[in-house]
């Protein structure tokens, strides 16, 4: 355990040092962390044994909320835009959750996929509001009240995202260790028993669904600000599939897995695209097959857990 903490601290320092030692990788890493937030949302649901192939919807909700607010020229700061994106995604999820949490397994996955595709279509078709297939540009907002140039903004946005990631990881880690989080594991292993304990498994899953969407919305907001652009593809099923892919790659067993998976995914994607433009998806696919075969618990479990009993 102590060694794990040491390893985690070293990994954190390595990530935190990137803007100083590999400055050109700063944006790539910020994007990875932003995507990692959305992946963590998927991981929360995986705890209950439920896969969502539609979390792109909440990712897009966060991103578009940020874009709309920036375009409205309200002069909102990044530190207000991000919670606003997360909030809108959460509200949508809580409303849709009343319906979605009635379903399990493939039906849960598909109902999420279906709704995200409806959202994708709306984002594409409602051109006057959403910018259609072109999406919307997101002008660089202030950060903590400061109007920064591009390089400074990218530098500080990285650390802002890193700080958010650390806080979110701690909070979600505590949530997953709480009765509510353990309730998710209970849904996965025996929902019948949970009901006979007098517990509404739907309510536990509904809360998790809201938490999960909040994380995806937060991630979407980060990406909108960092990349300066949002597009309907944010809600497309391929994006949702990517989140699931990364969750499996990193390992759903712990919170760190979402971010480790996301960083590895982003690096492989960037380098594979640069050096094997026609084959980069093949490289990713083969990596995932290798992970499933040789480290079914994901990348972090290769390092953190030699042989752990449960999740």
């Amino acid at each position, binding site marked *: 355990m102590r060694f794990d903490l040491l390893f985690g601290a070293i990994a954190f320092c390595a990530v935190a040092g990137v803007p100083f030692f590999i400055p050109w990788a700063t944006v790539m890493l910020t994007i990875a962390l932003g995507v990692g937030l959305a992946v963590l949302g998927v991981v929360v649901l995986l705890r209950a044994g439920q896969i969502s192939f539609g979390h792109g919807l909440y990712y897009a909700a966060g991103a578009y909320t940020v874009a709309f607010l920036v375009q409205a020229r309200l002069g909102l700061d990044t530190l207000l835009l991000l919670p606003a994106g997360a909030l809108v995604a959460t509200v949508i999820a809580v409303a849709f959750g009343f319906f979605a949490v009635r379903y399990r397994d493939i039906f849960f996955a598909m109902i999420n996929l279906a709704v995200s595709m409806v959202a994708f279509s709306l984002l594409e078709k409602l051109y006057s509001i959403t910018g259609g297939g072109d999406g919307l540009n997101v002008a660089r907002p202030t950060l903590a009240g400061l109007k920064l140039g591009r390089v400074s903004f990218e530098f500080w946005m990285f650390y802002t995202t890193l700080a958010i990631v650390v806080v979110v990881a701690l909070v979600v880690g*505590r*949530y997953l*260790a*709480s*009765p*509510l*989080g*353990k*309730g998710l*594991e*209970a849904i*996965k*292993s*025996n929902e*019948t*028993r*949970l*009901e*006979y*304990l*007098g*517990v*509404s498994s739907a309510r*536990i899953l509904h*809360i998790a669904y809201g938490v999960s969407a909040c994380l995806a919305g937060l991630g979407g907001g980060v990406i909108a600000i960092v990349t300066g652009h949002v597009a309907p593809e944010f809600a497309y099923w391929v994006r949702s599939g990517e989140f699931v892919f990364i969750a499996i790659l990193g390992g759903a067993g712990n919170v760190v897995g979402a971010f480790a998976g996301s960083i590895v995914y982003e690096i492989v994607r960037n380098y594979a695209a640069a050096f094997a433009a026609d084959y980069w998806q093949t490289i990713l696919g083969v990596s995932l097959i290798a992970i499933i075969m040789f480290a079914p618990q994901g990348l972090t479990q290769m390092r953190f857990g030699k042989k752990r*009993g*449960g*999740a």
Partner: protein
Amino acid sequence: MRQIVLKAENLRLRFGGVVAADGASLTAHAGERIAIIGPNGAGKTTFVNICTGYLKPQSGAVIFEGKDITQLAPRTIARGGIGRSFQLPQLFLDNTVFENLLLALSAREGTWRPWMRLDRHPKADEMRDMLEVIGLSSVGDRPVRELPEGMRKLIDIALALALKPRLVFMDEPTSGVSSREKFSIMDTLVRALDHSATTAIFVEHDMDVVSRYADRVAVWTGGKIALEGTPEHVLNDPDVRKNVIGV
């Protein structure tokens, strides 16, 4: 006269051509231990499933402490004071034994705070005591998946008792365990039931267990009670000996 805890009245349920409950009625008094015996397919588990909300009868009523619970959902019934264990233990296999009990504790207390670690539940000691009572303290930190059937049976019953129910249904608490284990399980169980003054109704095939631990026996055939009485009276009945016990 002891207070009536449960009154099941004239329950009827058919699955197509199969009659699972055909006017089944049973009354349980506070602190009683009632054994339900009968051949396979007689409707014993159906009766338990109706009383715990898993199945809804086509007619009849289940009255618990004066309230009609016939149409309530299992979780509402559980919250109302009825616990149950299963023929095949229903547990959270990936969690430890202690976590299983703590989840039951959280369910009972309604403590679902997202900032509180489950293992630091303020009443966790109560569950440690329960582990002690059922003799499983040494395996408290092990995942349930790794434990033998006998232990799982005990944990399944402990989960039901952790809710502090006023009535508990147990479906074959000693099935699938060795003959040596069964008395140990039942001794432990009866100790826990007496300790909490819980009324118990259990389905059982083992007549040694029935004669030793039941206050009253109800013989189920064709979806209803054919005979009811003390263990001595029922187990010595010629029809029961021939058709149920098989001697």
